[in-house]
């Protein structure tokens, strides 16, 4: 198995893309930390993983809070030992607002979760990875970091564009410690978050084929497979890269 004995922290993994990643990591032998603000849901996820024979622990984490970040690292080491092999920064938020109605509060919250939390948690975990001269950090960007979406969340789009720079920057500085830092940029993915935002009917209709040349909306497993690859031995020389997992939607966007 690819990740036997590896310890993987995944933020925002109580549900959605993060949960799918946790599932594919434990199936490859990793011990996974379900770090989420929603402890109840995180514990449900842990229960499901344990029922399938995996090893997992839930740690309540608010990545906008520096003490909570430090606690996550400390608790992880307490549960699974000193070494941390993989960090997947999945936690994210998208608040839709009309541009003229947008508030400072939602801007700050979006930046604090999607960007600031990602950097400071990466920093804390990278300190440990650097000691062991190995590690994989995966960030979640978005196609919204390349093109503005019609449903306005300016802060979200800007934060996801910044994730790409954060990824190349961390890769440049952590590369010499044999730490790979990469990102994936998913297109809209059929998660609870998106279903809640847009409704079930969102995934149907001719527009899907027009906007997504491969003809379908992504499933969480598409993202989990990409992340699994980036954390694998097969991707050992990939660094600072943002892998688009978008069904060709950016190609369609360029088609004029």
């Amino acid at each position, binding site marked *: 198995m690819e990740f036997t004995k590896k310890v993987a922290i995944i933020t925002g993994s109580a549900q959605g893309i993060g949960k799918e990643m946790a599932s594919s990591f434990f199936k490859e032998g990793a011990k996974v930390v379900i770090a989420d603000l929603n402890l109840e849901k995180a514990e449900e996820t842990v229960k499901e993983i344990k029922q399938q024979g995996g090893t997992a622990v839930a740690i309540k984490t608010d990545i906008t809070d520096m003490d909570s970040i430090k606690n996550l690292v400390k608790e992880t080491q307490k549960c699974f030992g000193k070494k941390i092999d993989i960090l997947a920064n999945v936690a994210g938020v998208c608040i839709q607002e009309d541009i003229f109605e947008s508030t400072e509060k939602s801007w700050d919250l979006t930046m604090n979760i999607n960007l600031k939390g990602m950097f400071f948690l990466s920093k804390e975990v990278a300190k440990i990875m650097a000691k062991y001269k190995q590690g994989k950090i995966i960030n979640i960007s978005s196609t919204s970091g390349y093109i503005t979406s019609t449903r306005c969340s300016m802060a979200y789009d800007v934060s996801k564009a910044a994730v790409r720079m954060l990824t190349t920057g961390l890769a440049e500085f952590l590369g*010499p410690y044999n730490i790979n830092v990469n990102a994936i940029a998913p297109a809209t993915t059929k998660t609870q978050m998106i279903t809640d935002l847009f409704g079930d009917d969102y995934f149907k209709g001719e527009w899907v084929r027009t906007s997504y*040349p491969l*003809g379908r909306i992504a499933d969480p497993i598409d993202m989990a497979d990409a992340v699994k690859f980036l954390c694998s031995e097969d*991707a050992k*020389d990939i*660094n*600072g890269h943002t892998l*688009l997992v978008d069904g060709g939607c*950016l*190609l369609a966007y360029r088609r004029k």
Partner: protein
Amino acid sequence: MNLLKEKVAIITGAAQGIGKGIAIKFAQEGAKVIIADINEEKAQITADEIDKTINSCVAVGLDVTNEPAIKKTIDQVIEDYGKIDILVNNAGIQPPKQPFYEIEGKMWDRALEVNLKSVFLCSKLIVPIFIKQGFGSIVNTASVAGPILWEGSLSYIASKTAVAQITRTMALELAPYNIRVNAVGPGHVDTELNKATFSVPGAREAMCSTVPLRRISLPKDLAGAFAFLASDKAGYITGHILYVDGGLSQNK
């Protein structure tokens, strides 16, 4: 080790170097590999080695700029295997470094023909089969050239940048047929062909120092990216240039 189980894959320029690394990896992942290379003798040696130790592998002599010859090869593979799942357009040349204003027109044409036109020709001739099958995956060998630049390689950089761009354009055209087209952009790679470059004292160290991961890739370090993109695990990825460069290009 079953990423490409039962897949039939044609890999051009796979007698040696990066292509050979791809062929070995594909075979390890369960693919039946057809090595198509202009150097038939070397292709045969590589194919025999893979066939004996890993999985089914055959060699065919092919000039990737020769349209009828490509057609013949594809027809033969269909006759022998009944399908083709994957085409890896890897054949390429790296013309000797020189100021661009000294490049002979003929040399320019040759670089563009082998590095770029071949991708067009092989893809063009295989696509009708992919469309009929209802599936197919193409992976091209691009380069960090484009995101990064250097002096003395005008025709190479032009051709590889164009490969990246036709990868995206072909991907757009072929997505409705469930055919994906992607590329891998290698950074510094240690192959037999550039042994001379690395044999200069200090050259390897100087090169490593520019790479965030502080190392030069071996063909086997690139092969996993080709296998992933070619596989169903990348079923939602098309038109992407995946740089495998240790962070050299900073994904520009």
